[in-house]
């Protein structure tokens, strides 16, 4: 694959000299390909949306309806299934997820912004090794270290508490988030900070009054990426939380699936409730999502 890429490196220029003969087919073919492509695009959109819509609608059906005629719309919508799922524990899981997610979003953005500010704007001893330590951690995935992590959390006395997840979700994503914010700060002009400094503002004031407002777009992107990650994380939540009252949605729902033992409408209602918040967050803030993703991967 590398070979073909290399030989084609200068291809755009080579292309201009080798002209293919234009024929009548050229005028008809684009229309046909466009039509075909549109069919593919539409089919993909349906393939993506249909299962999700089906899931939401199946929450309104009865178990019998789901099995006898899975394709049909619910005969008479059973809204009470959603209410039951809510009471069956989904509310509890939702609150746990909301708590863990918002705490880790706040923590990761704050800690990463501090680190990025310190590493780009301030004179810090050993700043080069520190930077390497932070960015190097992006290559490591602590999910491979479930055994020592569970021992560590037990030693710290936060195993099976909200703190276990908040701390891990934060620590795990600080490297990437710092990288993201740092890249943004490096591209910002420092004149305003300079001026604030001359006016006698302290570093702390400059951080809050100048840097945070100026870096707001990337902070929002980072927050949304973190929310998506924390809301949906499963491995840590499965291993480090055993108390049913503390479980987050991904683990709670998997538990519920076992507990309900094929009460499918209830399960689908629960799944829909769990999926909706992040879909809404994404739809509202997709500009920020895409920016964060693009800056993080593209640089």
């Amino acid at each position: 694959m590398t070979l073909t890429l290399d030989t084609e490196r200068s291809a755009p220029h080579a292309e201009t000299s080798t002209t293919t003969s234009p024929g009548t087919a050229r005028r008809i073919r684009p229309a046909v390909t466009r039509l075909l492509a549109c069919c593919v695009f539409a089919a993909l959109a349906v393939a993506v949306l249909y299962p999700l819509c089906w899931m939401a609608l199946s929450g309104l059906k009865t178990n019998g309806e789901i099995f006898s005629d899975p394709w049909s719309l619910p005969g008479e919508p059973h809204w009470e299934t959603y209410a039951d799922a809510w009471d069956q524990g989904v509310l509890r899981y939702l609150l746990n997820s909301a708590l863990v997610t918002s705490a880790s979003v706040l923590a990761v953005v704050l800690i990463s912004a501090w680190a990025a500010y310190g590493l780009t704007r301030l004179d810090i001893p050993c700043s080069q090794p520190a930077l390497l330590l932070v960015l190097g951690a992006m290559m490591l995935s602590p999910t491979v270290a479930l055994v020592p992590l569970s021992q560590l959390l037990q030693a710290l006395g936060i195993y099976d508490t909200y703190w276990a997840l908040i701390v891990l979700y934060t620590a795990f994503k600080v490297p990437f988030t710092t990288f993201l914010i740092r890249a943004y700060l490096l591209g910002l002009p420092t004149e305003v900070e300079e001026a604030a400094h001359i006016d006698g503002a302290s570093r702390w004031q400059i951080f809050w009054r100048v840097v945070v407002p100026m870096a707001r777009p990337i902070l929002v992107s980072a927050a949304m990426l973190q929310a998506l990650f924390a809301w949906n994380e499963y491995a840590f939540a499965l291993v480090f939380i055993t108390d049913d009252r503390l479980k987050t949605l991904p683990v709670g729902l998997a538990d519920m699936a076992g507990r309900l033992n094929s009460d499918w409408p209830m399960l689908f209602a629960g799944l829909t409730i769990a999926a909706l918040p992040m879909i809404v967050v994404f739809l509202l803030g997709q500009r920020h999502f895409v920016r964060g993703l693009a800056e993080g991967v593209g640089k």
Partner: protein
Amino acid sequence: MNATTATLKARGVRPARRLRHALYAAPALALIALFVYYPIVENIRLSLYKYSAFSPVTRFVGLENYRQAAQDPVFWQALLNNIAYAVVSVVFQVGAALVLAAALEELIGRRLRGVLRTVYFIPAAVSMTVTGLLFQFLYQPDAGMVNGALRAVGLSSLEHDWLGDPGTAIWGVIAMSQWQSFGYTTMLLTVAVQRVPRELYESAHMDGAGRVRTFFTITVPMVREMTGLLVILTVSQAFLVFNEVMVMTGGGPSNSSQVLGTWLYASAFTGDDMGYASAVGTVMFLITFAAGALQLIHSRRKAAQ
């Protein structure tokens, strides 16, 4: 800008101030050291021991756990499944997604294009637990829609108990994962495709080059930074797979759909063979670390250019 940064830094020469400045980076460094670096190093150390969670006795066994892995058929099955995961994911989430991103850019008007990209991304915003449980139903032999769709188009000979058959379970999980994730990479590749200067296409089109041709001669080479990075990320993710396998099959039937992540989990928390689980974790670490190092070299080289 470099000059102003230098003046900013020059002011803080006093050691006390430098230490105070270090406080900004301290929380990040402390968290990373304790919860990212330490567990991974400790994991390597633990992989040289035999012990169980319930007894305090640890026994140093050297590389015994790795020898056990080499002789463990489930370990090899899991590794193969991870490799299959990686290959299929690269084909769909990088290859097909690039074709899709380029085609969207080329053939669809601005507004509709944005809508489609958003629609494709939606599953990626949903937890793997949700999509996993949903697809568990869709794969059901009787009521599931997958078999239902096959029946509807007259292919009932292909009907199958997708997750119940050791031959197809892992493929069912992999397919679900592609459904969920292709929109994510398509979104990223679109960003890369949009950065390709339009003039390149215009001059190529004027010279009579078709779309397929410009895709291979212009798009593919121009976005290879992004595709290279995505290949590495996708492979790395494929070796860390856990959630969807756990939810959809639990590694079964008869360990046919185990991946390294679920086998680590099963060894540690069901089999109570902690040292062995750490060894499996170290193998995962080495593979993903190699991918990460490649990524770093990749972006360094890009930065140098």
